[in-house]
């Protein structure tokens, strides 16, 4: 180690980089657990809660440190002679340049991901690999220094050089820290407040009829502005990625959305039942831990909030137990909940369970719910709006990962004929069954051959009625895309909904035959009510 002490600016920038890299790594690895389940094995070491903000703030700090370092090197580059004498190559120089390369890769890939540009799955892999590389770098750099010099290495990176007037380094260190802090807060304010994707909501006449049929054939849709968004991190799709296109219209009373997203298959076989030698079984791969990724319907979720914070209005809290006094979740991914009294609207369109009702399930995210001892699944702030009547029911008396007893069986054996194709290629148009076309289960009626498939979603007499039915929606799948139209009153008056006004924010997520493994995007979409068609 050189005996030369470091300058105050070096100490400040190095210290900032150490803090930023540490925070980025821990928060980033927690975020990576969402689509890299293997990382759950080290989840005990990772932070829980609203880690996205930590990740983004540390990214800004690291970027500022990198920029500060480059600026501090300008005099050095200016003073270079025509042909500089290269410094001798040694272990630490090599490792440092390796670390610098990893930091540059990490920052570039991270900011591109944040902006939703480029081939996201590849970029996310590069970002993840550079993070893993940085873990090794920390050991090869800091670890080896500590090995060589022990605690004597610490003053070298913490204590500035001391010229004759000894207070000067401390003054410049303080000024530098203050400046860095000021830049950090300013950058965060700008990114947090002004990085949204604007979605123009065109105004149409109240007399214009928009059919909610998923076709979007009305001329007003052709004139509406398109927002294209890249989302990734979901299960299935194209390496977890799905590009989403959004359009919005409003007529002073209602708001209409037309949303299309990439999905290679129309997945309608929602937890189908299969007759086996042991009895009926639910086809499932992760449903027991509420993280089914194979035998599930396609879905789409829209979150609307007056809060435009990152991580879905600050509602995404990662980890198995982000709430110390509440139950852990089964999948280790986290919960959605509000940390204040603020309610966030959540519309959950389901290709089987609600599409035939021409509805999206009107839900909300509020404060964490109380613990209900009889409920195996605790959902924190994610709850359904109240309803007066109507529902779908699952066709089993009691869930089991092995065999179940169906609630009802077909009154006629040929009612199951459309479903007897090999999954997942079955293209039966309707994977719901009618309660009244089926009869209560009895072993004497259960004479179906082994291998028989039966849908599990039972429609009772009617669709949802009440608050839960506030969002009308209809989706159709065609040529590798879902096309979904939705409509809701701008203000329903319900305490479980939010009024939709100019400037509110929105997030979207697509699900490809997945229960919770949805795609996501970093920057909020902000609605802008300023255009008349």
């Amino acid at each position, binding site marked *: 180690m050189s005996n030369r002490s470091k300058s105050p600016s070096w100490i400040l920038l190095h210290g900032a980089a150490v803090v930023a890299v540490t925070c980025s790594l821990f928060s980033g690895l927690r975020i990576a657990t969402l689509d890299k389940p293997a990382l*759950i*094995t*080290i*989840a*005990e*070491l990772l932070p829980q809660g609203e880690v996205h903000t930590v990740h983004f703030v540390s990214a800004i700090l690291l970027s500022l440190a990198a920029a500060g370092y480059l600026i501090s090197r300008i005099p050095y580059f200016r003073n270079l002679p025509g042909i500089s004498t290269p410094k001798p190559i040694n272990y630490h120089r090599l490792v440092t340049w390796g670390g610098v390369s990893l930091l540059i890769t990490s920052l570039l890939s991270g900011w591109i991901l944040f902006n939703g540009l480029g081939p996201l799955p590849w970029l996310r892999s590069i970002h993840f690999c550079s993070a893993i590389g940085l873990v090794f770098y920390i*050991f090869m750099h800091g*670890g*080896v220094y*500590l*090995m060589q010099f*022990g605690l004597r290495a610490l003053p070298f990176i913490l204590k500035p050089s001391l010229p004759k007037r000894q207070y000067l380094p401390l003054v410049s260190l303080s000024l530098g820290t203050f400046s860095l802090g000021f830049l950090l807060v300013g950058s965060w304010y700008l990114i947090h407040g002004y990085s949204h994707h604007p979605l123009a909501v065109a105004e149409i006449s109240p007399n214009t009829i928009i059919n909610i049929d998923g076709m979007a054939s009305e001329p007003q849709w052709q004139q509406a502005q398109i927002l294209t968004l890249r989302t990734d991190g979901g299960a299935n799709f194209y390496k977890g990625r799905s590009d989403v296109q959004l359009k919005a219209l409003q007529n002073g009373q209602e708001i209409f959305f037309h949303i299309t997203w990439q999905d290679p298959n129309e997945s309608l076989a929602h937890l189908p039942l299969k007759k086996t030698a042991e009895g009926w079984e639910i086809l499932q791969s992760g449903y027991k831990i509420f993280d089914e990724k194979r035998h599930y319907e396609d879905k789409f979720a829209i979150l609307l909030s007056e809060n435009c914070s990152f991580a879905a209005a600050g509602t995404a809290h990662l980890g*198995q137990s982000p709430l110390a006094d509440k*139950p*852990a*979740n*089964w999948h*280790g991914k986290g919960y959605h909940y509000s940390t204040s009294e603020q309610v966030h609207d959540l519309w959950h369109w389901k290709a089987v369970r609600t599409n035939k009702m021409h509805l999206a399930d009107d839900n909300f995210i509020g404060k964490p*719910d*109380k*613990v*209900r*001892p*009889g*409920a*195996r699944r*605790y959902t924190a702030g994610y*709850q*359904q*709006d*109240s*309803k*007066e009547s109507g529902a779908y*029911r699952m066709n089993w*008396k*009691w*869930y089991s990962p092995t065999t179940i007893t169906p*609630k009802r069986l077909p009154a006629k054996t040929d009612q199951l004929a459309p479903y007897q194709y090999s999954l997942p290629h079955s293209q039966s148009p309707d994977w719901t069954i009618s309660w009244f076309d089926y009869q*209560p*289960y009895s072993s004497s009626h259960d004479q179906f051959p082994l291998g028989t498939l039966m849908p599990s979603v039972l429609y009772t007499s009617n669709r949802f009625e*009440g*608050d*839960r039915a506030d969002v009308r929606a209809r989706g159709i799948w065609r040529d590798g895309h879902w096309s979904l139209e939705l409509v809701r009153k701008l203000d329903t008056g319900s305490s*479980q909904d939010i009024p939709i006004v100019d400037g509110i924010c929105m997030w979207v997520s697509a699900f490809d035959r997945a229960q919770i493994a949805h795609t996501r995007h970093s920057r909020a979409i902000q609605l802008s009510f300023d255009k008349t068609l």
Partner: protein
Amino acid sequence: MILRLLLVFALPFTLVAAAIVRAPQNPEPPEHYLVKVNMQGELLGAWEGPWSCVCDKRSGLLWEVKTDNEDIHDGRWTYSWFIDSEGVANNGDCYFELNRCDTEDLIRHTNRERLCQAGNWRLPTLSEINTIISKDNKPGSPTIESEYFPKTMRGDYWTSENKQKLSGIYRYLTVGGTAVNFIGGDRVTIPYRNAAFVRLVTSRSTACHKAPQ
């Protein structure tokens, strides 16, 4: 040097290894005063099923659990109030009687069946049914712990109280029975002829006495 080696490399490695070995634990059900009981009268865990009755450890009462399988315990069936020739017979709707249904029909069938291996099933008193009212529920849910008492309707449930003075538009019918409304958990007095829901109870069950106190 060995100490440094341990601190720099062995300690982080040990932490990672410990995190891998100490896999996160699955959630466990919390202790609760309600206990599920199956048709054979056996106690079940909070997240086990199916179950046919619920024992309330606070009161020692065993409660009927409603179903949606069109058996006699289906939660959609309604009954007129009729006990010991008092009230109005056969004015509710169900599938298990040739005629329409009244409270005595459900009590007779349930005792014959020995639901959860218990007898002496009866209508609850007002104070008994009030013990299972829970007002801190999910939006739009009935005022009861729906995770233990599924298929509960947001409507009136009969109690054993009869000969209650009717008022308002029902005054001309003079007396009726007391019911509890599971929309808000309120007491109401309604004519015997009204089709209301029923949840039976028994205070004589082996299962509930076995429930850990």
